[in-house]
């Protein structure tokens, strides 16, 4: 067990964690932030995407202890019902989600694109390469990100 101090969604959290604990499991099991999803064992699906010091990472591929001293933002920290982030608003308006399981990771990955700005449809498709969706055929996800980028 090791001591972990990490700022999650703006709140400093101090915990004792097993060294092998993945960041995704720490967020879900220790902090109860279950908005971050786990959809595969091999870092393909991207459902677990969170921001680590402002950059999107697949939290199933980061040890919790690697986030020691860092700042993490999860889907719960992006917006809330009634005060949605503009990406969440765009996903809602454009029907960019169906079952919703890939959605938190997809939105966290796309949030990084907004920072980059000025992306066209092709560039958005390329940029979302690390996130899988099985419901939407990506059509409305791409449209939602385009709308939020505009």
């Amino acid at each position: 067990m090791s001591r972990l101090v990490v700022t999650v969604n703006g709140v400093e959290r101090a915990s004792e964690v097993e060294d092998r604990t993945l960041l995704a499991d720490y967020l879900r099991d220790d902090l109860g932030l279950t908005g971050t999803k786990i959809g595969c064992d091999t870092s393909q699906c991207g459902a677990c995407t969170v921001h680590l010091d402002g950059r999107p990472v697949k939290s199933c591929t980061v040890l919790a202890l690697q986030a020691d001293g860092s700042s993490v933002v999860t889907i719960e920290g992006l917006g809330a019902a009634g005060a949605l982030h503009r990406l969440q608003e765009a996903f809602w308006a454009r029907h960019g989600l169906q079952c919703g399981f890939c959605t938190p990771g997809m939105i966290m990955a796309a949030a990084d694109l907004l920072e980059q700005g000025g992306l066209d449809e092709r560039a958005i498709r390329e940029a979302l390469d690390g996130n899988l969706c099985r419901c939407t055929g990506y059509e409305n996800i791409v449209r939602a990100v385009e709308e939020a980028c505009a």
Partner: protein
Amino acid sequence: MTAQAEAVRERLVGSPVRRVEDPRLLTGAARYLDDLALPGMAHVAILRSPHAHARIRGIDVARAAAAPGVAGVFTGRDFEHLNPLPCAWQAAGTENHVVTPRALEVDRVTFTGAGVAAVVAETRAQAEDALELIEVDWETLPAVVDAERAAEAGAPQLHEAAPGNVVMDWQCGDEAATEAALANADVVVSQRLVNQRLIPTPLEPRGAAAQYEPATGRYTVWMTSQAPHVMRLLMTAFVFGIPETSMRCISPQVGGAFGSKIFLYPEYVLVAALAEKVGRPVKWVETRRENYTATTHGRDHVTYLEVGANRDGTIAALRVRTYANLGGVLSTIAPGIPTTLYGRMLSGAYRIPAIHCRVLGLYTNTGMVDAYRGAGRPEATYVVERAVDLVARELGLDPAEVRRRNFVPPDAFPYDPGILAGLSYDTGDYERALDRALELAGYAGFRAEQERARAEGRYLGIGLSSYVELCGVAPSAWIGTGGQGWGAGLWESANVRVHLTGKVVVTTGSQPHGQGHETTMAQVAADELGVPLADVTVEHSDTLGTPFGYGTYGSRSAAVGTVAVYNAVQRIKDKARRIGAHMLEANPDDVVYEDGRVFVQGSPETAKTIQEIAATAAVAYDLPPGEEPFLDDTAYYDPPNCTFPFGTHVAIVEVDAETGEVALRRYVAVDDVGRVINPMIVDGQVHGGIAQGVAQALWEGAVYDDEGQLLSSSLLEYALPKARQLPRLEVERTETPTDVNPLGVKGAGETGTIASTPAVVNAVVDALAPLGIRHLDMPLTPERVWRALSEARS
């Protein structure tokens, strides 16, 4: 009339209403199975067979039982008192040789991934650690993974109860008439088609959690299920042998399913039994590798087709013989998929005078195969749409023209294709959808562009798929035991209550897992009652508090489940009219219900609102004589027929002649799903379906080696489509309401998957036609296309 009343009157049905379920999904607040944490909950990990075919000589769990955090280790011997899982849909009119899984297998396994032992521990990690300490004494046996090989004499035999590995030998149609028509046809084209095995891959893996109360003998089981009511029935009455009322089943938020979460799985039974054994709540969630080996797969047909046609392109006969690979044991409705939902749809959108289909279902040492999005209908559409293109090619005719010449014409409905066991296609205008799709795709100008590209050494191709499919699966008497062999009914139910405050609660027996029932059912209820959408709440997915329903699959929740909502609302309105008339001191025969108000015909200025009537009904101070309090009614809807959506999809591809890579340049879909409740949701269903069908054509395929090891056992090896591989999808609709139900809706969940696969394959074959390539089997990966190109050139 006030502006507010005007706003209420705006029709919700037909509008792209934003989904009411989305805020919780967008913010990470929705609770899926794995997000559940019960007080004192332990975690389950399952030891799975590494062998495709083996006997279990013995299992030593001593070391695992002593491992840190372990609360118990269990094998199949611990659950021998539980029955094997039921097979609820056996092929009709023929003998079925049924072998189904148990909670844990006891002495033999027939596929890699079959569960043989389980550990319960304080944490998931401890449970997985302990799995490695279980020692199984295996005796491996020869395996067979291919259905055609499994049918051969001398093939390894999987089950004593299934001689020759045969699950069933089923047929439909007229064998003699087909033989005669083929003999008399101007041309007969034959082709072997492989419809490869697919892995459904919802992004949320499967899981279950359970708790048991010894004082009452009651189980509560949470599960990732498309059909919680059916799960409860199957688990209690068929596996545990206990009253149905001693179990509550709940599907929390479910993260996609595509058919794979319809079925009763061994793990659901296991988790419920373990909760009782260890005396505390337990949870199990599969890893993606488990999802790939132990959750059902789809398709896996090898088909030999012969299609006979006249010189003018009219089809005279279709003969189909299919080997359907059903895996190592049977999943819940496995035999029904390649029979009723496949063979009976082989007429497609066409008048085909003679059809005969024979299907041999086989056991092999592979994972279970059952319904996957479309379920039998994609396989049938693939056969029919490839056959039409083969005929066009053989006769040198335009594939669009061949389709046109064979279409069931608009004035022929209801149309009995002769092999639907008494059902008829409801409504349709197939040519209208074809014409619109061709127009959108620029079909008329495409051939010239294709010629120019060919002159430059570029291979462009265009492919069509004009499909018809069967939705809203029911009616009970047709599908059931005396008909198509389904072991129950297939009606749906809905309860509607208008509370004292005027707020409306709809409970449904169907089970959304991405489709948006909370929105579309509310749209229908709000429109019919004349109340704002925000006043209607839709509750579902818990056997406590919802009426029995068979669940969501087969595109049946609009055409069956939502019609039950509509019917329940009509009953509420009837009662509201009686109470409203009483409040108005009028004769019930003289009042009407319009836009949420009851008034005497011609006197809308003196009206009682549904909210006023609901309050009057709820407090019950002054009701008409003999009238019961409260506005509350339940409807059970069993449709008189299935519904038959249709349309035409067009794919335009370019094949890279050097690498064999296929690029999907454009994709045009014109679907007709009847009346549309929410066009935004229907478009989304079509988009997702197209992506899955395109992926079958080009990328996806489950691959087993000869020993029965699943080589595509993770998302590393199984090629799920990505955003960059797909073009903008160009989706339009025609709208031909069904006359089967009062809403006019047909169903939209599977059309995209059903239509798109042959459109893409037809396009690739069209692109490569100058090289003499007449057919290629899926998936059309760069390697497969490159090899075909190399062979054709040499």
